[in-house]
């Protein structure tokens, strides 16, 4: 009996030892992968440090700041009209939209309001820059997933929108067109007809992308159920814009705020999606381009007559005070906290940019996904480096 017991015990120990050896042999070493700062999928110089087990992410962390340009500090040594030249380089794909909240903040402090025509034109240009921005996202989405063709369609059709913006403001990427109290100029001749036809082209582009990309089974299998962000997590991490609406939160600053802009004067819908996955985020953006074209079309039809500039002094001095104004920019909520001490320039400006908050969810959402999904999730979160690093 004891003999058998000993033998059993020996056999047990031997099997344990063998198991242990196998485990030691099979234990794989983790690998730290630096995605970026120079990597084709990071739209610039975002660095993501990912700890991998095989192809699975154990943890990941974004490391921002490789392109920090110090705009908050620079605004302190500029006058108010000069600041727009800086801030429209923050989200460089939708630059006009960057100028608007800052100008609105300064106007709020001064107690000035732009005339109705200027408000309309501001809203039109704001939505045009949203279309230019998001249509490029839709093309880039294909590249991130390995489909090369959509990006060329996106560049082709974005060009029409950029031509419109250039025609109205003189600048393709950096319009620098917004002024405290209104706009630099009125719209050029023929702008309305041209814009109507371009909006039709953009709606065709949306159909094209929907057929080419969103209807594709491979695209759906790569994005559906990947990178799911539930409602409460999205709110906790301070997501905004389409990323938040894709998680089912009905929140749009264009509708919810009473700003001196023209969004509330036309008929459009806030798009939400209940899923919160990568597909939902991309789908919401696609639908928002369609809504934007609707907004632009309606605003052009109801454009009021009148001046585009309110009466403001030649040298602008903003009275002492503090104001925070944020708008629903292409990437999400963008706001400026302007502190004035009665000088020609702001005393301090704090920029709340959408992408900086949106990528704060990256460590949470990338945990446990595979390397290829890092790229689709990052692409669907849609950040622009200038908007992160400012």
């Amino acid at each position, binding site marked *: 009996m004891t003999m058998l017991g000993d033998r059993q015990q020996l056999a047990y120990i031997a099997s344990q030892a063998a198991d242990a050896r196998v485990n030691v042999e099979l234990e794989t070493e983790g690998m730290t992968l630096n995605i970026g700062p120079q990597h*084709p999928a990071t739209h610039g110089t975002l660095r993501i440090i990912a700890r991998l087990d095989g192809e699975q992410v154990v943890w990941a962390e974004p490391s921002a700041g490789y392109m920090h340009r110090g705009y908050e500090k620079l605004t302190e040594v500029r006058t108010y009209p000069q600041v727009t030249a800086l801030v429209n380089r923050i989200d460089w794909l939708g630059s006009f939209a960057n100028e608007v909240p800052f100008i609105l903040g300064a106007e709020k402090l001064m107690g000035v309001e732009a005339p109705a025509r200027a408000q309309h034109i501001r809203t039109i240009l704001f939505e045009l820059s949203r279309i230019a921005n998001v249509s490029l996202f839709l093309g880039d989405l294909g590249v991130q997933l*390995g489909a090369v063709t959509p990006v060329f*369609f996106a560049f082709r059709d974005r060009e029409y929108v950029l031509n419109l913006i250039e025609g109205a403001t003189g600048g393709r990427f950096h319009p620098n067109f917004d002024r405290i109290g209104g706009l630099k100029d009125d719209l050029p001749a023929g702008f309305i007809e041209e814009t109507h036809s371009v909006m039709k082209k953009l709606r065709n582009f949306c159909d094209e992308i929907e057929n080419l990309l969103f209807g594709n089974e491979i695209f759906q299998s*790569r994005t559906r159920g990947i990178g799911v962000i539930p409602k409460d997590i999205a709110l906790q991490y301070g997501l905004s814009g389409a990323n938040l609406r894709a998680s089912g939160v009905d929140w749009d600053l264009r509708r919810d705020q009473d700003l001196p802009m023209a969004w509330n004067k036309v008929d459009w819908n806030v798009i939400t999606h209940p899923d919160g996955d990568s597909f939902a985020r991309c789908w919401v953006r696609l639908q928002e381009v369609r809504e934007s074209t609707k907004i632009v079309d309606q605003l052009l039809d109801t454009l009021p007559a009148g001046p585009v500039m309110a009466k403001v002094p030649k040298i602008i001095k903003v009275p002492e005070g503090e104001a925070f104004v944020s708008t629903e920019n292409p990437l999400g909520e963008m706001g400026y906290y302007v502190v004035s001490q009665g000088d020609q320039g702001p005393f301090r400006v704090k920029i709340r940019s959408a992408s900086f908050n949106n990528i704060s969810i990256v460590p949470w959402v990338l945990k446990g996904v595979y390397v*290829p*999904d890092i790229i689709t999730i990052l692409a669907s979160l849609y950040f622009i480096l200038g908007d992160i690093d400012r």
Partner: protein
Amino acid sequence: MFAALLSSIPYWGQSLLRVLGGLVAVLLPAGTVVYLFLFKMMSFMQSRLGPMEAGPYGSMQLFAEVGKWLQKEDIVPDAARPEARIFKLAPLIVLASTFLLVVVVPFGPDALFTNFETGIFYALAVSSVSVLGILIAGWSSANKYSLLGGLRAAGQLIAYELPMVLAVVGVVIQAGTMNLQQIVVAQNTGSIFGFDGIGNPYVITQFVAFIVFMIAVQAELTQTPFDMPIAESELVSGYMTEYSGFRFLIFFIGEFATAGVFAMIASVLFLGGWGVPFSWFGWTTIDSIDNWMNVGGPLILFTKMLVLVFFIMWIRFSFPRFREDQLQRFAWKGLIPIALANIMLTAVLKVAF
């Protein structure tokens, strides 16, 4: 007569001719595919013109590109120094696999390099040599992205070897031979239920095998939607990331030459190879074929190859890519059962008729 002509040349002359023929058979399809599809078709699909400056309609662009690559420095990264010899060898292995593959393709009744009895078996065997080259390239680059790319490529190419072999088995059963030349003859002299107007190209009777084979070819070539070993947006360029200059060029030529050669093998297996249906000329065997088919045959095969490469490239330019695990699932749960069912059905029908 052609064979007699060849045997009158001394052995070294024959060998030289074969080497030159091999170079033409690999480089000509590669160049055509790159210019016609990668440069021009892709551009037209993407609403742009593509290269237009070098030569008429940019037709000399290819030579400009090759010249550019040849001028570039041949860089070996510092971390790859200890294994520099292996690092430098890898692209050559990939290209060698293409040359080994083209050896068995019959271009005409006598226009062939070798007439293996087990030609298709050999072709499937040497096509996996490129995996070694890719794995070596991925490992010896001493780069994490390259390593991931190399490992992905190895997993993918092994997974897709199997459906490819199984798809070919259907053709082999129907033709009753593994000799590629005999497969061509069997298709061109065959008949479908007594109707011999178009011979019996196996694309009709073996349609399932054809589709499975083409999907597996797409994966073997690591073209989108199966291009995750290269995956520019994730792995920068996968196993080719660290290569520059003419070694990158060799990878590049290898990729498109293999596309051409695989398309040739597919047209030999499924589209009737170098022949048009023999019944049109009253032929029944290969012996009765006139010498001019040695000139016409390669052109016919080339045309069929272009048609197949067109489909490969069309899919490449319009599809996003799979994820690694989805690709494996697609191979093991989708393609292999279908291919097995096809083999069973073919065997039953072969015995029944």
